[in-house]
């Protein structure tokens, strides 16, 4: 098989040990910032906007903040985090001197960082629940595994951008030209359907928009259009598979050539 389960398991354990040591740092980075966005916009802007898409603004916002949180986690992890491990501390080299292979490292990195978001999402939903912004608790819980998978897609894209750009200084481009536009124009803060047509078309470029199309109705307790879920799933899976292969080739070139 292309991947070795044994190798992935060993790496997962190593990531877990690191996570356990730095859990508070991860908490502040992953969750607290998102909670502040949620409260500031939900309570602040929410006063000015009475209803949106048939619900209170803060209720509309909650799934948006949840779905968008992974974009940031995965960006930092797959650019700065990865770069530090293969260039900074050089520990990838030490791993590659064992039976661990490049593909095992890349997939472990994506899986672990994606999973790391699950507790963060749970906490976000708990906070939103206390603000009365989670109409369907069941639906919200079901979005967690979906968002973990979505993180794999966000991650593989920024992983490619990071290895292509190569140097940490350039990672600001990713933040400015990909992460922020995606976060701001995918409908986290407003209803895309009510925007001008060009903005609706623009939103289609971003995976977050497609993920939100699935996740928001679930949290709001509305029926989900299974056909569009299926299409989104196929498209996002394809992005992941192709993205992973391209990332693998890029890293092979950068590390071994």
């Amino acid at each position, binding site marked *: 098989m292309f991947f070795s389960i044994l190798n992935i398991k*060993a790496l997962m*354990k190593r990531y877990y*040990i690191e996570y356990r040591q730095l859990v508070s740092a991860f908490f502040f980075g992953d969750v607290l910032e998102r909670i502040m966005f949620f409260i500031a916009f939900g309570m602040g802007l929410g006063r000015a906007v009475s209803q949106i898409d048939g619900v209170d603004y803060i209720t509309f916002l909650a799934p948006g903040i949840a779905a968008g949180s992974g974009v940031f986690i995965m960006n930092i992890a797959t650019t700065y985090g990865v770069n530090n491990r293969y260039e900074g501390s050089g520990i990838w080299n*030490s791993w*590659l*001197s*064992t*039976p661990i292979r490049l593909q095992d490292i890349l997939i472990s990195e994506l899986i672990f960082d994606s999973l790391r978001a699950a507790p963060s999402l749970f906490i976000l939903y708990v906070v939103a629940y206390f603000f009365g912004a989670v109409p369907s608790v069941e639906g919200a819980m079901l979005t967690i595994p979906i968002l973990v998978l979505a993180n794999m897609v966000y991650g593989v894209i920024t992983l490619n951008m990071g290895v292509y750009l190569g140097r940490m200084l350039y990672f600001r481009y990713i933040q400015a030209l990909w992460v922020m536009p995606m976060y701001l124009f995918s409908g986290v803060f407003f209803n895309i359907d009510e925007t001008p047509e060009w903005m609706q078309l623009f939103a289609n470029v971003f995976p977050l928009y497609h993920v939100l199309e699935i996740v928001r109705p679930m949290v709001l307790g509305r029926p989900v259009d299974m056909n569009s879920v299926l299409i989104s799933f196929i498209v996002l899976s394809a992005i992941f598979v192709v993205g992973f292969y391209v990332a693998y080739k890029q890293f092979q070139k950068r590390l*071994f*050539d």
Partner: protein
Amino acid sequence: MAVIEAQNIQKSFGEFKAVKGVDFQVPEGTCVGLLGPNGAGKTTTMRMIMGLSALTAGSLKVFGVPVDKVGRSEKMRIGLVPQEDNLDPDLSVRQNLEIYGSYFGLEKSYIKERADSLLDFMQLSEKEDNRVNHLSGGMKRRLIIARALIADPEFVILDEPTTGLDPQARVLIWKSLLKLKEQGKTLLLTTHYMDEAQRLCDNIVIVDGGKVLDEGSPKELISKHVKNNVFEVQKPIPADLEKSDIDHEDIGDSVLYYVNDPEKVQGLLGKNATYMQRVSNLEDVFLRLTGHKLRE
């Protein structure tokens, strides 16, 4: 059987040719030293053996397997001590060994046993709970060597294992490497320290500019290139000596004369010559073959 068989291996980075066709072998149970100035292509060669750098051309076999086909079973038999300190900064000393052991898929109890004995072997037991960032340079090197030995490999590659260490730390590392030799392990070593190479290596390959200049045992290389004795004679050189046909090399302010019989030079020195006489060593061979000029 040879653990490593390199035939005409080459490596280019774009236009730059780092390794231009190197041949050498590492026979089982021996210690081979790869010596050369900075930029000679030593580290690149090591990285190619570990599969961390793809060959541009040539054939490289590790345990008889072409390097691009090397898999888990071969990797299990090799330990690498890299030049850079790439310990896992988020883990403790003991965790660095144990987690590394898990990458080889070893049993937990076996890893623990190995970690215990390696911490002891490298005199790191007292530091086992420290974060690696808090270790001195010498301790880090020892930990990296211990880490390379976690799976009890038959073959250990050491890329400048003692560079930058104080004499005490170097002696400790030499002792442990000699113990590994006694255990019958195969070693491939790069170093800038000729005394280190002379002490540890059965066979030496001198490389420069990405090519092999010569190879042989330290003794063979010394007697072939620099005889038994060296006289470093300051200029001006006494006329009798200058006229003689003694093997020599001009290094600027002085001239080096290489002879088996010291009296041969002594008789020609005259009264006023300033000179230094000593038994020749591997350093003389190295400088003779790679030149006395600074490289970088």
